[in-house]
């Protein structure tokens, strides 16, 4: 992975920087011992490792502001880090950069049922928010599979999704306010407990910006009342094509399920061996559909889904008999990654989105890619919204397998783009997909995005080397290219 060339002069000043940071964040908050730094050498994309120059773990917004102001003045790069579960290398350290971790921002600040929101610090885990309001029958809707570990700040930075985002939206649709510190140390607030921006929607563009625009120090999220009942169906299909058609037919019937997940045969077998969820093993595709709402609605929709499934050749249709069985249906899906981890020494989780109708075509062509490179691919999908997570199985200890796995990954992502999809559905671009951005965007598209970066961080000090393949200097990006248009244009109607 090619990263921008580290600045040796900054590396040489390491001790001086650490001392200065200790003045801002006293106590244990500054880490510069090689052994302790190792805990931060990668995020969830473990194939790429790099020791950070220094790690700083501030505890207050004022400290974050002072750290950034100092680094801004001293031209030192910053990598923001939440829980480090990101799968695209967004929190991967830089040799000449300071990793700024938000793990000490652990407090939920305000639970407001009247306004149906929670104000929280960014280091709080996604699940902890739901747990804090659970007794009152509320929850926070976006539920990434990593929810016990990942931080809400990281969720905002990645615009994370989960199995329920088909019906309830992604992070961007479920947050109301953000406090953020800019690279120059300025503290800025967007939104609050009210809706919409009233000016440019800066909160909207920050969501999913992968730590390139600022450090998030507080988040206000919308909470929802739990549905009265939740029911899940387990539906097996003889072929993935049948499964794909069933997904399309359910949506076409006007049904938006709470969740609609699909696993292929390899994944079904791996998870069944691991958690014994009771999955049928004689199927090529297994779907979990969750329906929620009042029981009158759920019963009605279960009936309609069952009908549609049967019309699409379903070989098994099982409705959970009770809550325990519903949780068991999900246990396999939720443990799909570790289950694959048991059958393969290493794996890469791909994350592309495709139009739903292309599912069968993409599956077939993916099988071809897998064969071409001689590596197995297991598939899990957020089928409802076309978000694919092919898992590429490989052994990093075998000569050349990592490189081949990377090729499979980029071939699959290029395929997603080719059929009208996108490079990342929810894991972000980071370093992993950075060099593929040109497949989806033109030079002008990318430049326009980077001009937004310049509005927040003109010196490119925040998380450089991530998301964008090429770092254009802001002065360069700002130049106007005048196309000498002449009037009158004969071909534009004028009045």
């Amino acid at each position, binding site marked *: 992975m090619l990263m921008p060339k580290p600045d040796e002069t900054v590396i040489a000043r390491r001790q001086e920087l650490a001392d200065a940071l200790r003045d801002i964040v006293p106590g244990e908050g500054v880490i510069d011992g090689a052994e302790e730094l190792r805990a931060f050498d990668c995020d969830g994309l473990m194939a790429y490792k790099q020791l950070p120059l220094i790690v700083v773990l501030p505890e207050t917004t004022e400290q974050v502001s002072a750290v950034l102001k100092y680094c801004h003045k001293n031209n030192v790069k910053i990598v923001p880090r939440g829980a480090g579960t990101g799968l695209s290398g967004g929190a991967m350290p830089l040799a000449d950069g300071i990793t700024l971790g938000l793990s000490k921002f652990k407090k939920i600040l305000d639970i407001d049922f*009247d*306004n*149906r929101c929670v104000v929280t610090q960014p280091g709080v885990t996604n699940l902890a928010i739901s747990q804090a309001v659970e007794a009152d029958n509320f929850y926070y809707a976006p539920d990434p599979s990593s929810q016990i570990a990942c931080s809400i700040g990281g969720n905002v930075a990645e*615009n994370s999704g989960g199995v329920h*985002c*088909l019906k309830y939206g*992604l992070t*961007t*649709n479920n947050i109301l306010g953000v406090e953020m510190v800019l690279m120059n140390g*300025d503290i800025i607030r967007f939104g*609050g*407990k*009210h*809706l919409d*921006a*009233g*000016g*440019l929607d800066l909160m*909207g563009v920050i*969501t*999913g*910006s992968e730590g390139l625009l600022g450090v998030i120090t507080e988040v206000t999220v919308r909470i929802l009342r*739990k*549905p*009265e009942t939740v029911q899940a169906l387990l539906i097996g299909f003889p072929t993935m094509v049948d499964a794909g058609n069933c997904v*399309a037919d359910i*949506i*076409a019937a*006007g049904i938006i399920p709470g969740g609609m997940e699909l696993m292929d045969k390899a994944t079904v077998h791996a998870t069944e061996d691991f958690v014994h969820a009771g999955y049928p093993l004689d199927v090529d595709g297994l779907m979990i559909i969750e329906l929620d*709402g*009042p*029981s*009158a*609605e759920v019963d*009605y929709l279960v009936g309609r889904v069952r009908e549609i499934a049967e019309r699409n050749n379903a070989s098994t249709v099982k409705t959970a008999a009770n809550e325990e069985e519903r949780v068991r249906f999900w246990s396999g899906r939720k443990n799909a990654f570790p289950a694959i981890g048991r059958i393969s020494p290493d794996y890469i989780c791909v994350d592309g*989105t495709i*139009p*739903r109708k292309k599912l069968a075509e993409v599956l077939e062509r993916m099988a071809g890619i897998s064969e071409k490179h001689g590596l197995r691919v297991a598939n899990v999908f957020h089928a409802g919204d076309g978000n694919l997570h092919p898992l590429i199985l490989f052994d990093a200890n075998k000569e050349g397998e990592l490189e081949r796995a990377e090729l499979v990954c980029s071939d699959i992502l290029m395929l997603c783009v080719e059929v*009208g999809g*996108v490079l990342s*559905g929810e894991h972000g*671009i980071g370093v992993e997909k950075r060099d593929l951005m040109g497949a989806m965007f*033109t030079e002008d*598209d990318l*430049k*326009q*995005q980077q001009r937004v*970066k*310049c*509005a927040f961080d003109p010196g490119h000090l925040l998380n450089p080397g991530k998301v964008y393949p090429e770092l254009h200097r802001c002065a360069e990006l*700002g130049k*106007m*290219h005048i*196309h000498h*248009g002449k*009037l009158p*244009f004969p071909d*534009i109607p*004028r*009045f």
Partner: protein
Amino acid sequence: MSDTLKPENAEQLLQAVQWAVAEKQPLEVLAGGSKRAYGRPMQTAATLDLSALYGIKIYEPAELYMTALAGTPMSDIDAALAEAGQQLSFEPPDLGPLLGGAANAGTIGGVVACNLAGPRRIKEGAARDHVLGFHAVSGRGETFKSGGTVVKNVSGFDLSKLLAGSLGTLAVMSEVTLKVLPAPEKIRTLLICWRTDGVYDHGAMTAMSRALGSPHDVSGAAHLPAAVAARSSVDYVSNSGGGVTALRVEGPAPSVEHRAKALTETLKEFGQIEELHTSNSKTFWQEIRDVSAFVGRDDLPIVWHLSVPPASGAKVALSLLEELRGEVIYDWGGGSIWLALAGGDAHADEVRAAVAKTGGHATLIRAPVDVRAETPVFQPRLGPESDVTKNIKIGFDPDGILNPGRMYQGV
């Protein structure tokens, strides 16, 4: 006389903007012109009219998205969606009549550029939440795109959010892709008809908060004080004789039946509950959506829209009505306040001071042009937020070619 450029395709649009850039000729960007009287007034010699860039390019109901050219009339979009049993779930309002113009003159580009949303905002989000992608020409005279046609997408910065609500000050969209969703099978509206004398607005906030905190999936929560309720074209509402709080449930028939019943039970302590069925419900929520009660009100020429924490709605509105003569409509469970005021002054300082107490923002939606010229129409941006806003404008439109000053001076 003002010069009007009316491109008929994306290539001509690009040329038109490039010409304006080369000539340093600021452009007023419009399509239907239905919201021309919205925002700060501008002095531009040339107009870029997008109304010839129209047509639905791709509509795939099963994929839940539609791509349309920016100048496509909303009436065309609504008709196509209705045919497939779908809708834009954010319920875009038609503010034409409120702003003194014709009904049904809006275009999809205008809806996105203004980031409008109706009563369902509380459940389904605003226009910003439904834009999946776009193609546009920046004030640099360059074509660019962002997003795609799929809902789940974290591939680079989400410029769709930035363009939604930017009032054409950053770039001219040539086409937009929107998420579409199934229209509900059935709609039911519960009305709490307040019988108590005097001010029931606080009670209404409590009732709406109770409903929105219930598991009954309420998709609209509005409150009309007596004077506003009396003006409704729905008899049940206008004849109620007092204030009316309305709560909407939608979805499959059996579910709606069940939830309407359960919600009635939840709310009965607040007063007598009436029900509106699908057709009356549609009329009623359209009135709320389009702020019909304030259309053509020469006695109340000033209209503000306030967005505040929902539980504080009544507090903010009532404190303003103590000082100023006017009327209010509450939507979004109290979080949206439409405030109509008498007289020639917009009273921006009073309005913004009231909002500042709870957090939120206020936008001057309707006012005579001279009032809009001297009043900050959009919530003023301060300190670093103002810096970032200006920097973003410079990134997209450094020479101030596109709708200069329509949102903020210098932006």
